[in-house]
């Protein structure tokens, strides 16, 4: 399922984004350049309005860049595609489909043979630990379970790049911790590239190979931290906290004091 033999590099070159707000135009992204090799876990972190979600949505193909280009192995991204899958903060599961039907949605679009669809679906239902809940509807699940379904739905579709927009933002602390742990296991097992938007410095340092700190007005990548700590990471270790402090410092150095 992973594509270790054909590493696919995600490249973002000079991407900018302008939005029309009334009669004005707002520059959401200044030229952004970024290269992410296959299999890397990257966290995007920054204050609200720094364009991190916009960048993610451009990579997903939901938004077009105003200038520049995002590409995978030199092939420009022109729209949503099954090689990239988004996990939304508010889940965006299909409420009229059961867990199993949500997860099998992608494979069903490709009109694979029935046995193959069932096999893939079972595999991912099991991977996210929802075998007992496979025939439930999303409204009958907890937030953590819904987000597991969303992750499995993307992976069952053979996505190489997992895009996550504050996926655990709406969950309670305990569930979030458990899902972070499960996400790392799944990421290790599948070898997908993960691009993960978060507000939490701790979450970023816990998960990522690389933390990109973004700053606002217009949005750009301010600094690029490589996290070399071995996994599983100890949140209370001095190294962890040193990194956390460094990143937090970069993050707050850009918070413009609001003028009255």
């Amino acid at each position, binding site marked *: 399922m992973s594509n270790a033999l054909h590493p696919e590099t995600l490249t973002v070159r000079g991407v900018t984004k302008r939005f029309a707000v009334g009669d004005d135009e707002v520059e959401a992204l200044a030229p952004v350049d970024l290269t992410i090799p296959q299999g890397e876990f990257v966290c995007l972190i920054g204050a609200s309005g720094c364009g991190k979600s916009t960048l993610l949505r451009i990579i997903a193909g939901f938004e077009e860049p105003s200038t520049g280009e995002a590409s995978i192995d030199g092939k420009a991204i022109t729209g949503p595609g099954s090689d990239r899958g988004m996990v939304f903060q508010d889940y965006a599961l*299909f409420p009229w489909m059961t867990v199993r039907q949500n997860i099998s949605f992608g494979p069903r679009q490709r009109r694979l043979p029935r046995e193959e669809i069932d096999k893939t679906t079972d595999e991912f239902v099991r991977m996210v630990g929802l075998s007992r809940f496979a025939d439930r*509807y999303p409204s009958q699940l907890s937030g953590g379970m819904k987000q597991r379904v969303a992750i499995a739905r993307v992976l069952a579709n053979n996505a190489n790049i997992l895009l996550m927009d504050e996926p655990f933002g709406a969950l309670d602390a305990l569930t979030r911790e458990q899902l972070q742990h499960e996400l790392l296991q799944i990421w290790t097992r599948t070898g997908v590239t993960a691009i993960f938007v978060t507000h939490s410095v701790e979450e970023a340092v816990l998960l990522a190979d690389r933390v990109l700190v973004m700053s606002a007005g217009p949005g750009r990548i301010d600094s690029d931290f490589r996290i070399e700590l071995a996994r599983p990471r100890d949140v209370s270790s001095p190294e962890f906290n040193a990194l956390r402090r460094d990143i937090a410092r970069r993050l707050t150095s850009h918070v413009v004091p609001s003028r009255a």
Partner: protein
Amino acid sequence: MNDHATILTETAEPVAAAALRRRNRLRLETLRAIALGAGFPILLILIWDRAVAMTGTRLIPSPYQVAVMMYDFSFGGVYDDAFSGTILIHVWKSVQRVYGGFFLAAVIGIPLGMMIGRIKLLRQLLDPTISLLRPIPVTAWLPLSMIFFGLGPNAAIFLVFLGAFYPILLNTMFGVRSIDPRLFEAASMLGCSGAGMFRQIVLPASLPAIFNGLRIAHGFAWILIVVGEMTGVPTGLGSVVMDGRTLSRTDLVITGMIVIGACGFITDRIIVAVSNRLLSWSPQHLE
């Protein structure tokens, strides 16, 4: 996930007992609802009966007289006139017209509403016209529909269609417009597009709104059958009511009214049952 599993197995016994208790409570609740729901009409009939007896009016029949008429209308053997034992013919004719118009409205209204809701060009093209035609009362179409379709059942079907069409169309449009855009994004990233998007996303996601429209439209359809059957058809519940009026047989008028009400009620229950079945995924919809 493991903690979930242990909790569920350990508490299996009490859960079963609680489920039984809950089921019993639910059954009692249902009985209560039926008793209350049926009690009020019985009270109304009592008031009606007393009022007729006390005023001594001859313009309004007593509930008993209407009951006799209902019996004669259903089985015959009391008055043995043109209406005795004819209930099934009239119900059947009205059902054909109601559902002819209703299904025609659904078959045109649902796909059109989905397309107008989804395709901007179509919305810009048709929305003003729809907004212009919609406020025109269906009864105002009566003369024109008789010119178009002549005296007969087609004019009735046309009127029912007109009355049922707008609620179905507008609710479908509204349902499509209020689909969370994230669902379209999610579907397209999973490889869904074009006609598949309509069938797999737009239709099921707007189904709750579509069923609301169908239910409202279905109510209108039964209301309009009386108007529709004023267009000079010899059979149908609407024509029975009109004939009763012409003949000054108020007992027949009321009998026709009750049968129309009962038909509308029973068929509405069927629609609710179907929608509850199809929409079991939607926690807001069950009633």
